C-alpha cells in the first residue's frame, strides 16, 4: 500500500490516490497524526499548502512527527516521492538537498511545462529514456530550486537530477525555466534514488481525461 500523507492544508492527496490507482497501485490517504502505517511500502508527500505555508513552504510539515517515520522508512529503502508542497517538505526535512523558494517572477504560476529526463536509471524515470521530453503541470509560488554551487555540482556528478525544465524540443533555456530554478532543475533524488522530490505534478498528468499521461511513469516508480 502506498501511503499518501495528508497534512492540514494538503490538497493533492486525493488526486495522488486516484492517479496511483490508475497505474494499478493500491494507495491510501494517511492522516499525519496517525503516523505511518507499518505496511506502507511507499510514501507520497502530496501537494498543497500544508500549515498555510507559514514561515516557509513545507517548514512546519517537515518537522511534524510523521516525518520521523518517513525518514526511517526512507532509510529502510521504502520509496518516497514528494510533489510540489511535498517537494518543499522533503527539502525542508533534509530528505533531499537544496530548497524551493519564491519564484523569480514573485507570482504563483499554474501552467504546463516541458521537462527533459536527465537520468532514466532511477525508479521514477525508468519508464522514460534519457533525453525524453515530457509535459507536466506546475502550480506553485515557491518552486525556485536554490542550492549552493558546490552542492549542485555534487548532485550533477552523482547524476541525481531527474528532470530539468526545457522547451518543447528539449533545450534547457532560461526562457523555458518557469521559476528561475538553479540549473533549470525541476526534480532530484536524495542520497538514495528511492527518495525523490519534484515541483511539477506527475499525478495531474496521469489520466487521459486530463489531457496527458506523461506522469504515469513517475508513479510507476512505486511498482
Amino acid at each position, binding site marked *: 500500500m502506498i501511503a499518501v500523507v495528508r497534512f492540514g492544508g494538503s490538497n493533492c492527496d486525493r488526486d495522488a490516490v486516484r492517479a496511483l490507482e490508475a497505474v494499478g497501485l493500491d494507495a491510501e490517504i494517511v492522516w499525519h497524526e496517525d503516523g505511518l502505517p507499518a505496511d506502507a511500502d511507499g510514501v507520497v508527500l502530496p501537494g498543497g499548502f500544508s500549515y498555510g505555508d507559514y*514561515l*516557509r513552504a513545507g*517548514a512546519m510539515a517537515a*518537522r511534524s512527527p510523521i516525518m520521523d517515520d518517513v525518514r526511517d522508512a526512507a532509510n529502510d529503502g521504502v520509496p518516497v516521492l514528494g510533489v510540489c508542497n511535498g517537494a518543499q517538505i522533503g*527539502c*525542508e526535512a533534509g530528505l533531499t*538537498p*537544496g*530548497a524551493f*523558494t*519564491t*519564484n*523569480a*517572477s*514573485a507570482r504563483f504560476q499554474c501552467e504546463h511545462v516541458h521537462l527533459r529526463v536527465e537520468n532514466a536509471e532511477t525508479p521514477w524515470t525508468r519508464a522514460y529514456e534519457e533525453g525524453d521530453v515530457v509535459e507536466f503541470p506546475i502550480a506553485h509560488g515557491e518552486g*525556485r530550486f*536554490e*542550492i*549552493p554551487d558546490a552542492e549542485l555540482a555534487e548532485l550533477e556528478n552523482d547524476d541525481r537530477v531527474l528532470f530539468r525544465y526545457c522547451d518543447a524540443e528539449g533545450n534547457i533555456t532560461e526562457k523555458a525555466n518557469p521559476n*528561475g530554478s538553479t540549473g533549470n532543475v525541476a526534480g532530484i533524488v536524495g542520497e538514495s534514488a528511492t527518495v525523490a522530490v519534484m515541483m511539477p505534478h506527475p499525478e495531474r498528468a496521469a489520466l487521459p481525461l486530463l489531457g496527458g499521461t506523461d506522469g504515469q511513469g513517475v508513479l510507476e516508480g512505486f511498482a
Partner: protein
Amino acid sequence: MSAYTATVTVRLKRGVLDPEAETTKHALERLGFELEALRSTDRFELDLDAADAERAAERAEGMAERLLANPTIHDYDVDVTERE
C-alpha cells in the same frame, strides 16, 4: 533565572535572489522614492527565561538552526537583551 528577549533576524544569503524584495523596491520607485537596493528580513522576538544571556543566545541559535532559518538559503543573527 533572568528574563530575556532574544531577537533572531533571518535574511537571505547574499546572492540569493529575493523576488519579493525586488517587487517592493519597484513599488517604492513607482511612488517616486529613490533607492539603490532593498533587502527584507524576518525578525523573530523570543521571550525566554535563562540563567544568563549566553544561555539565552544558545537557545535562540538552536531554534534558528532547527526551524526559523533554512541554512541552504539563509543567514541569521541573534541579539539578546534583558527583559523588564
